[in-house]
Structures are given as structure tokens and as C-alpha cells.
């Protein structure tokens, strides 16, 4: 019954990512794409919130978007890096998706 939450906005610029975390349930998956990937880096003001979410949710980041922004290899521990094929798998393996635009 899990939901895949797709986030594409920087948590430093918009409230969408916070809102996603506030509404995601235990067992859900969260995927960062586009500008949202900046949220995956450790040591930021946002990192603590993401770590708290990882207690009962799985968190993914799109590697191509991370690399584009010069952040390759900088995703914090516990965040799984996926490619577009992995993105597709996540949408198939979770029963529904929600994009936090």
C-alpha cells in the first residue's frame, strides 16, 4: 500500500519538500529529482529533517540530477542513488505516486 513521493523542488527555496515529509507515511518511499537533489547533501540546515524521515521511510535521489549540480558522491549515507531506470522501478514497485509540485 506504499506511496512513492516525488519531490522536485529545493527544500531551501520552497516548502514543498517539508510538506512532503509532513504527509509521508511509514513505509513510503521518497525520490528527489531535479532541484530537490540539493536536499540530499549532508551538513545542511535540511539534513536533519531528511535523516529523521529515513527512520521509517526509504529515500532515493536521481544521480543524473545530483551530478548536474556538482554534487555527485555527496549524497548523505542512507540515501540510495538511482538512475532513470531506477526511477521507473520505484513507480512500478510502489502502488501509487504523488508529485509534490
Amino acid at each position, binding site marked *: *500500500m506504499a*506511496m512513492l513521493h516525488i519531490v522536485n523542488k529545493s527544500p531551501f527555496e520552497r516548502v514543498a519538500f517539508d510538506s512532503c515529509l509532513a504527509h509521508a507515511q511509514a513505509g513510503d518511499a521518497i525520490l528527489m529529482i531535479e532541484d530537490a537533489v540539493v536536499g540530499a547533501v549532508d551538513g545542511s540546515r535540511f539534513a536533519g529533517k531528511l535523516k529523521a524521515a529515513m527512520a521509517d521511510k526509504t529515500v532515493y535521489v536521481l544521480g543524473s540530477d545530483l551530478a548536474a549540480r556538482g554534487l555527485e558522491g555527496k549524497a548523505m549515507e542512507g540515501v540510495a542513488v538511482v538512475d532513470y531506470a531506477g526511477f521507473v522501478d520505484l513507480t512500478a514497485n510502489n502502488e501509487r505516486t504523488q508529485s509534490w509540485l
Partner: protein
Amino acid sequence: MTTKNFLFVNRKAPYGTVYALESLEVVLISAAFEQNVSLAFIDDGVYQITKGQNSKGIGMKNFSPTYRALGDYDINKLYVSTESLEERGLTVDDLMELTYEDADDDYAEKPSIILVNREEMAAMMAGQDVVLSF
């Protein structure tokens, strides 16, 4: 035709962008397809249903009366985030009174707005099949 649970998530203020208006057009169409439709008003989405909207000065059409018509299309589950209202200094009294006539209860007029906190909103979302956001 299959009936699915459709959720429309409204997170943006009206008029500053077109999403609220054009989202409403999809909501009405989905009713015509006899789907089980719910709306969520979260974050700035709560401004879409404030009462007393007067858009004359900005030269745009006031489309808020359309929300009042939703009840006639059997769309009567409008979930509003209490935390979003509070953060904005708003209460339910700042919102339009949105109602529907319950065909199963002698057409009694009932409120369409359902105030929910984050946990309840999340639980409602978990029961959906198709989640649309704009």
C-alpha cells in the same frame, strides 16, 4: 467504467498562478467520468477557498464560485489542513461555506469542507489511487 479514488492536491494560491483555476477544470471533468473525487487544500492552497474574493482590480475572473458548485457534481470531500490555516492566521470562518445536498439523507444540506490535521490528511492520501497535483 472502473471507478478509482482521484485526489487533487491544491498547494498553491489562486491568481498568482493558473494552477488553481485549471485544476478545477480537471476536477469537474473527473466528476463527469463518475470517479470518486477528493480535494486536498494544503499550504497556500487554502487561499483558493477563502470567502470574499474580489478579483476585479487585477482584471481576472473570480472563479471561487465554482467551488460552491462542486456539491452539485457529487464532489463533497474537500479536506482542508488545519495546520496550514493556523500558520496563515486563518480560521474556518475565513473560508467559503461549501456544502452539498446528501441524496441518501433526504437531500439534507451538509458541509463539504472536512478539517483535518496532518496525520488525518496523510491517512486520507494513503487511500487514493490517482493523485494529481499542478
